[in-house]
């Protein structure tokens, strides 16, 4: 079941996999399955955990239909040319019984007739958010409203899109090997075990339950977390952010600068002001902040920040092979955990901004 995405150039992985039994057992406990690639993210455990915890499959969605979520994720991965995530979602759809033909039709976007207007609207929303970012959010939201989505469903859909944008960047920039997962639907063993895999997948995915926020979210991104109050998504995003801030490989200021650049690049009205305020509180002079956001550099930045600020900008719109080569070039100047953390911060920043654009001005 070859896909057009398999022809997208993909460089060798820039990371070394590490065995981490505690992390592996965490993944297995959360998802019911082991992940063949989690070892690549082990040096930055917050990122590895965020990739699992933020996955909408496991207890985060209250309203949105899982199959609809899968379809939207498929087109977002396609838009982002993430061969890894695309193959993973495709394999998931196939394992659940969707025919290869139907998957290919959805990929080609040719026979819209066999998709309901609701599914079409959700897919269009996913494409729009990935292609045009927050700039296209208003129109995309209106189309969703017309198709009958209520605010809660819309927020969950936006989360599924944003999470996929995050995951796509983490796997693409690191150039995580794709072949093993691309081969899954064609391997004899998996074809024989398809019904069993289907049962396993269905057994392990579960709906979330309304979850109150235990504490008021701390900025930056407080507005965005608050917008999901009552949903299990809110504490999960807050937890992922806490993990990112606590991780020691990059300074808090460096992370904030990267996130602020992404917020500006995507014109994220929800995130950019909070990130700016956080940098001010962190002691960065207003003039320096302006200089960095306007020109992606300032003499007051330390050498690591001067490397990673322009890198953050490059993660907003990219093609896989050039961004992977860029990450490889960075690898020569950063430690492995530093590079991984930089990839994770950029990926999360991109995902959150796309989410913020939808939350900012609810329909």
């Amino acid at each position, binding site marked *: 079941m070859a896909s057009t995405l398999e022809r997208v150039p993909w460089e060798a992985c820039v990371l070394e996999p590490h065995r981490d039994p505690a992390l592996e057992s965490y993944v297995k406990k959360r998802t019911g399955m082991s992940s063949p690639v989690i070892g690549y993210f082990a040096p930055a455990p917050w990122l590895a955990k965020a990739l699992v915890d933020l996955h909408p499959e496991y207890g985060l969605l209250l309203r949105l239909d899982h199959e609809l979520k899968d379809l939207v994720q498929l087109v977002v991965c396609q838009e982002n040319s993430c061969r890894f995530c695309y193959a993973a979602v495709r394999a998931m759809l196939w394992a659940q019984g969707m025919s290869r033909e139907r998957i290919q039709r959805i990929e080609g976007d040719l026979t819209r007739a066999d998709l309901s207007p609701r599914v079409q609207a959700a897919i269009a929303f996913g494409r729009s958010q990935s292609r045009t970012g927050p700039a296209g959010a208003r129109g995309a939201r209106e189309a969703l409203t017309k198709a009958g989505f209520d605010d809660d469903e819309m927020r969950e859909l936006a989360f599924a899109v944003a999470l996929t944008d995050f995951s796509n960047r983490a796997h693409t920039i690191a150039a995580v090997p794709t072949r093993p997962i691309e081969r899954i639907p064609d391997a004899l063993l998996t074809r024989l075990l398809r019904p069993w895999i289907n049962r396993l997948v269905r057994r392990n995915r579960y709906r979330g339950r309304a979850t109150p926020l235990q504490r008021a979210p701390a900025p930056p991104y407080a507005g965005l977390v608050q917008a999901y109050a009552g949903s299990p998504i809110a504490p999960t995003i807050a937890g992922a952010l806490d993990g990112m801030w606590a991780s020691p490989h990059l300074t808090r200021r460096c992370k904030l600068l990267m996130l602020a650049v992404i917020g500006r690049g*995507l014109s994220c009205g929800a995130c950019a002001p909070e990130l700016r305020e956080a940098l001010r509180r962190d002691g960065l002079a207003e003039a320096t902040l302006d200089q960095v956001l306007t020109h992606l550099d300032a003499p007051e930045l330390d050498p690591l920040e001067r490397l990673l600020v322009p890198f953050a900008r490059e993660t907003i719109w990219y093609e896989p092979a050039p961004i992977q080569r860029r990450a490889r070039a960075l690898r020569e100047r950063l430690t492995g955990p530093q590079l991984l953390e930089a990839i994770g911060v950029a990926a999360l920043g991109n995902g959150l901004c796309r989410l913020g654009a939808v939350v900012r001005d609810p329909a």
Partner: protein
Amino acid sequence: MTRAVLVAAVLALVAVLAAALYRQRRRAAGLQAQLDAAASELQHLQEACSRLAPAGVVQRLVADGARATPEVAAERKVVTALFADLVGYTAMSERLEPAVLARVINGYFQRMSDAVHEHRGHVSTFLGDGILAYFGALQPNPWQCDDAVRAALAMRAAMRDYNVELAGEGLPALSVGIGIHRGPGLAGLVGSRERMEYAFVGRTVNLAARVQALTRVHKVDILVTEALRPELDGCFVLDPMPAEMVKGVDEPVVTYAVRGTQGPVAPSR
């Protein structure tokens, strides 16, 4: 006897039906393969279109299908336009063999396009020996002015390297004039029914071309307008040039020659 004939007839009927079914299945498989190939082709086409026009425009046209009209996707936006032109091309074109000339000019276009792409620009069109490129047209880009000037500096460096290659082959050196201006205009698909392209229409493009022509007046290779200057990083070394009148503009146009960069190393990709 009758029974044997009946059985034979049934068997023959079954055989005919089986053959027909087999033929139908093969035909269906063939059609499915064609459909898959068409789907794949369309996907590639859509991806290719996304590199030629903003993704949002492609998306709207694809979504509207047969009802799509290019006018629907037109929008006003602020873009930085870069216009580059070879100096002395006409004289050179009369001296070189057509095949050599084509190789030289293609080498020039390739190097200039690479420099533009490297800095997130989009080459809109080749006009004779000229190149028109935009920054901030395909995707929102708040750093479009810096990008355009960095691209121009990269074009200058690429031209220097290319001239070393040309000199090695005994060919004349090339030089390029580059004009950059930033301003609003109408972005969208324009053209005739037979041929359309994503373009940015308005005074901004015209002025970039006029400013490019001023490079010969001021004897410099890169000029930017006053509209760009406040947006540019302080690391760029700019020299003010005397204001000049240009066709189509009522006021004298103030320009700055870009000498290079100083101080902190500019962010590079």
